[in-house]
């Protein structure tokens, strides 16, 4: 079962774990996952993110470090520095920050 932080949920603190996480609500603080993070269009994340994969359709403010891939979808908005071997920014996405693809 997918972990879902629903639209009306606000978390202020630290989330860690080894399962996929879907954010539809608000998370402030820090997110550390072994697998994938999905920020849906209703999601707002003000947190530093460390994970394997990130897919962003919502709003993210914070530094992102992924061991595999960061994907900013067309409706994603990201302010922060991204470090990952693969970084995809779709047409329409808004992004401000540094990109570091060093392997």
């Amino acid at each position, binding site marked *: 079962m*997918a*972990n*879902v*932080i629903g639209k009306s*949920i*606000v*978390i202020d603190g630290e*989330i860690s*774990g080894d399962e996929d996480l879907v954010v539809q609500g608000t998370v402030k603080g820090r997110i550390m996952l072994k697998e994938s993070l999905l920020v849906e269009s209703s999601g707002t994340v003000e947190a530093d993110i460390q994970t394997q994969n990130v897919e962003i359709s919502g709003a993210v403010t914070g530094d992102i470090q992924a061991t595999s891939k960061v994907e900013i979808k067309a409706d994603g908005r990201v302010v922060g520095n991204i470090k990952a071997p693969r970084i995809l920014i779709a047409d329409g996405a808004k992004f401000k920050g540094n990109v570091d693809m060093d392997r």
Partner: protein
Amino acid sequence: MANEPPGVIGKGIAIRGNLSGEGDLIIEGTVEGEIALKNHLTIEETGVVRADIKAERLTIRGEMSGNIEASDRVAIQTNAQVTSDIKAPVVVIEDGARFKGKVDMDVELPDGIL
């Protein structure tokens, strides 16, 4: 809100901090800190919660410690392990549940008792 599926904090997830919001929530993982939820919170058998909880309804099947304030009811089910002071109009403790703490149902007892 009622027809929205409940949020789930799964087994492999740990949250440290404050969690608040509306809607139903199921915790199968670990939460430390504070929880304020407008609707129904369920702590499943695998769930471990060390937090002060404010919610409308609370169902506990796992491990929980911290203070509870519920506006509707608290149900501590079989296999639950709870250390808590509970304030709620209805508190149900099932056979097999382990509970340590105070219960305040704000009941007015008839004269002659206590």
